[in-house]
């Protein structure tokens, strides 16, 4: 198959997700500037089982893969075929494939500085993301680093599962509330899980932020409307940076490593009393 115009491919696991949509928007912006088309292959739409990639990889000018959407070995195979690649929000250790990631460690440090330094919280519950996702892993490691930096106590039951699913996060939050209530903050690996925790706490009559502060990683319209404190990087920019990596490779630049985007704190009512 060949395309009428040069084309960038995007492989994602859910093109309508808030994050994925913003990344794809960013890729399209740069593609438009260079008169490229963008073809999106969403291989596991809305919870459906993952299906094989349908893009004709060799006909593409370049390919962006979002958040571990396909196995690393498959991506290594694409690299061997010579197609320019960019990874968004994940990396493959031991390869030279360039990637664009947000600085999860810096983001967690910023959130913890806010919770500990500015809000005076010391007993913080963490809601994990999906164990096999790079972002989830880095945010958890970042959280634990900050726990050490501030010399805080972290009982094992304060690390609860969320799997990047608001339902799972709510369930874990309820279970923890039934077990113990001696925490003074909840930090979620993404903002949708943070909102789910906020709902559970509010329904249980817990004073937020008086008794418990709540914050989450990433930002969207939902966190703004619910007053959830977050840290966020510009996700559209993440897409733009990835597309630029592809354009650079297409004009002959050999590159390796990761482009890292910083995050900024967005303090709202769930940590700052109005």
């Amino acid at each position, binding site marked *: 198959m060949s395309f009428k115009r040069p084309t960038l491919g995007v492989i994602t696991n859910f093109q309508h997700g808030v994050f994925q949509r913003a990344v794809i928007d960013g890729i399209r912006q740069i593609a438009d500037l260079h008169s490229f088309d963008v073809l999106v292959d969403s291989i596991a739409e809305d919870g459906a089982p993952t299906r094989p990639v349908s893009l004709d990889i060799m006909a593409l000018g370049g390919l962006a893969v979002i958040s571990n959407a396909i196995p690393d070995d498959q991506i290594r195979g694409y690299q061997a075929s010579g197609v320019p690649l960019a990874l968004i929000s994940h990396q493959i250790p031991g390869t030279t494939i360039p990637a664009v990631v947000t600085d999860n460690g810096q983001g967690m440090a910023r959130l913890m500085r806010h919770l500990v330094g500015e809000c005076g919280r010391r007993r913080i519950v963490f809601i994990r993301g999906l164990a096999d996702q790079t972002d989830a892993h880095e945010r958890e490691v970042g959280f634990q680093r900050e726990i050490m*930096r501030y010399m805080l106590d972290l009982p094992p039951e304060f690390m609860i599962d969320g799997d990047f699913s608001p339902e799972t996060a709510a369930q874990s939050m309820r279970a923890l509330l039934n077990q113990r209530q001696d925490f003074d903050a909840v930090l979620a690996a993404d903002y949708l899980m943070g909102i789910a925790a906020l709902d559970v706490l509010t329904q249980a009559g817990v004073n937020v932020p008086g008794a418990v502060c709540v914050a989450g990683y990433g930002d969207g319209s939902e966190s703004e409307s619910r007053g959830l404190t977050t840290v966020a990087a510009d996700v559209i920019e993440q897409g733009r*940076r990835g597309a630029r990596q592809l354009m*650079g490779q297409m004009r002959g*630049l050999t590159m390796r*490593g990761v482009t*890292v985007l910083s995050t900024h704190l967005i303090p709202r009512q769930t940590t700052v009393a109005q």
Partner: protein
Amino acid sequence: MEVRKATRQDLKRHNRLSLLRAVYYGLADNRAALAVATGLTKPTVSELAAELIAEGFLVEGGIGGSTEMGGKPPRLLNFVSDARQVIGVSVDGLEVRAILVNLKGQSVAEHTAPLDGKTGAEAVTILIETINGLVAQLDAPLLAVSVGVPGVVDSEAGIVKRSPLLAWYDLALADTLFAQYDCPAYIANNTELAALGQVARGNADTREDHNRVTLLINGTVEVGVTVQGAVYHRGGDIGAMRYLPHGRTDAIPLADVLGWRAVEYRAQELRRDYPNTRLPATGLTYLHIRHAAGLKDPAAELLLDELAAVLSIAVVWSIALLRPHTIVLAGQVADLGDLLIARLRYHAAERLSIDDIAAVHFTLASGLNLSARGAVVMAVHNELEIL
């Protein structure tokens, strides 16, 4: 020393930069004021301003107030921060960190790549492929590339004289970068640049505070010195300096104790001696050491004390020779925090008087991009005499 006569080009460059500096620092915002601020004639100012506008460094925007004589209000000139971009890089023994900034030093993007133990020509390739990661992100013409490396560097000649960590010897790195990117390329010692970056950032409160020694501990140990705000250009890698540990008969290099790989190795040894230690078997960081030491973990306390004892050798010599007001501990080692400073003071006091130690202010600079930022400052200052 031979003194070269200034040429017409030199004079023009000087005048252009005077003009640009005056606008950048807010000394003047229109052609008439620029003539007063720079001492140049009005026709010269107009000609140079037109050039700088054409090249994108200045832009006309808005109208100023009328003069006291009721003359025509002047057109205002503004500095364009995004007219050019600069890539600043720091290479240590572990990775390449590169930043892309505009002419006000504001970060546009960061790009990093691990060295994975590579040295020599392979490390040069990784350096270039990392810089390429930011070349792909350029929004404006590239003003310069500037690189900090560990070791002894001849900045004027653009040659890495000796960098054992990277196995770079007499490497004409600036020429390689110039050939690659067709723009001015600068190189300097990492710690010198870290010191420069701190001075330029205005971290110092007083002139006296500008007398500082920066000890950068990454893959090796490097020293940078600023005296009265100016960078002393003979700093460098002291990781190869040997010392005789207590109870041993053979001297070992400082880097063999303070370099990160040595710290990991020593932690492994201590885990065998202290099986219940909180030091993790994998993924060890300085924060783990600090946290465990803070909880009175004997292995972590011992490790931290050993690091402080060896680092105190460099600290003591710095104090004895230079009497700095401030000693900055830079790099990831800063994560050891106040515990490290307390142990350093203790060990330094074994060799110098307590008064000498007390007179020195110790600070921590954990910013990973300190040297890369210094590299940017050097390049922008050399090219445009600003920042």
